[in-house]
């Protein structure tokens, strides 16, 4: 992906740490250049300002964002999140996504759902969804399908266990190729996880002991290196009697 000279001079803080209020870049006064800004950034007049602390990064698609690690989650459009159903108001569900407000999930926002054929989610159910609206002053909205209307892994999550982590760890878990802890666990165990960028991870394995091992290993892997993660998994598996292949 080629970077033109102007783009480099636009963001002096690229790759550096920004604090809330720092100007990340100034929008060019002339030209039709499109600058895409993502999480942690806000446009005020001609400047793009950081709204959270973290490293300034640019995605391969040219999207600028500020990436930090927090316990608190602020919803952003297109985030994949895990929500807990808290109320049911007729056709709409009220869900908790761990943010400042509860979000709403329409009963028909599932693949193949119609007015007559809606999923019967009870209070306390878990769903894997996507944020479709996240205005600062309004209730966010989520749906359980991708932009094309297909489920793509979104929808209700049955069984399993869920735990909370920081937004930083959630982002690492979603990286491609898989992070060291997930690969290390995968060498000997078969398990399923769904990672919400809101700092929630749902995990499911064949029995409770394995699920607990997977969950706690992931939690403990946040501040240790890849090699240390592999060593930790090896120790745990040996103790459990499930040697890695």
């Amino acid at each position, binding site marked *: 992906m080629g970077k033109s000279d102007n783009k480099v001079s636009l963001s002096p803080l690229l790759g550096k740490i920004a604090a809330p209020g720092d100007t990340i870049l100034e929008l060019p006064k002339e030209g039709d250049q499109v600058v895409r800004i993502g999480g942690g950034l806000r446009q005020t007049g001609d400047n793009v300002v950081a709204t959270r602390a973290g490293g300034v990064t640019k995605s391969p698609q040219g999207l600028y964002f500020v990436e930090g690690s927090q316990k608190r989650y602020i919803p952003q459009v297109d985030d994949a999140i895990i929500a*807990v159903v808290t109320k049911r108001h007729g056709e709409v569900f009220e869900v908790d996504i761990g943010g400042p407000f509860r979000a709403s999930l329409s009963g028909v926002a599932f693949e193949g759902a119609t007015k007559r054929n809606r999923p019967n989610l009870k209070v*306390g*159910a878990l769903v894997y969804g996507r944020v479709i609206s996240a205005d600062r002053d309004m209730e966010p909205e989520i749906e359980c399908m991708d932009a094309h209307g297909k489920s793509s892994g979104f929808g209700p999550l*049955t069984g*399993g*266990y*869920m735990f909370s982590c920081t937004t930083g760890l959630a982002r690492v878990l979603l990286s491609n190729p898989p992070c060291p802890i997930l690969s290390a666990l995968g060498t000997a165990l078969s398990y399923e996880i769904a990672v919400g960028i809101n700092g929630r991870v749902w995990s499911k394995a064949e029995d*409770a*002991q394995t699920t*607990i091992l997977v969950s706690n290993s992931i939690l403990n892997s946040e501040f240790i290196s890849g090699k240390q993660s592999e060593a930790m998994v090896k120790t745990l598996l040996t103790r459990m009697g499930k040697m890695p292949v």
Partner: protein
Amino acid sequence: MREAILLSANEREFLVGALQAEQRVDGRRPFDTRRLKVRFGPNDGVCEAQLGPTRVLSSVTAELVEPFPDRPNEGSVRFSVEFSPMASPSFEAGRPSEEAVEVARVIERSLKGSGAIDTEALCVLSGRKVWALNVLIHVLDHGGALLDACSVSVLCALLSFRHPDVTVGGQSGQEVIVHPPHVKEPIQLNIHHLPLAISFAFFEDDGELVVVDPSLKEEAAMRGMLTVCLNPQGELCALQKAGGVAVSTSQIMRCVRIASGKVAERAGQMKALLSEYEQGREKNRIRRRRPHSAMEEENAGSGSAQAGDKSTYHQMESSSDEDSSEEEEEEE
């Protein structure tokens, strides 16, 4: 009022199901307690105890007041608990909630009710001046088993607290002179025994599934809770079960037996941490009592711990009679 934690149906089912296989979600077994960490504050009588993520800070202060008319020879102890809003989304600033009052009451019952604190030793001048102790308990982080952490924190604060030495004299024999710490060494409290709290959580309709030292998620999923306060000698100081699922007497007795083992272990840990603190305090005290030594000042200024220690040990050998006798007394 918000809940301490929002638990999904999946988590609740998984947690209880795993418990039936004697697995706890944080990897512990049903009767494993979390690691205890104790840190002593900058002053005597300040202590922060941590049990896993649960964090409680206690501080003890004392003032000379008139005693209650019906107890002219006794001092008093007052406990107040503050649930900081940073500890949990369910804690709000303002008047203590029902839960906070419950914690204060159980701590009070286990310490005052059992006679752990010698209030007669707090008497300075009968009928006129006694020490009134004020124990402030701040819950800084709620990670489950608040009473367990509070009782360790309060006990360590009381054990490390020192009140100024006083002499009664003067012309009328009724004057109370309070000595500052650099003139006369402050005095420890007289604590007779160490009551410690151990909490249990019950699950399912009959309360047959039980765990020790519940975490926050376990407290959200539990059906009832029991707190047992015992001392290492096996004496029961308090028992608290406020509502919750009905539990058989044999289950309660089982919990008390488990608690006595845990209390013995925890008291041992506490004593070790406390003696470490006391040793550190001794070193500082000895350094403090020789401000005239130029070598001492130089070493203190350079901030080199090793050099400082060497100088104090050296000075300990050449100390005067008066000093050495006091040191021997303190080393007990």
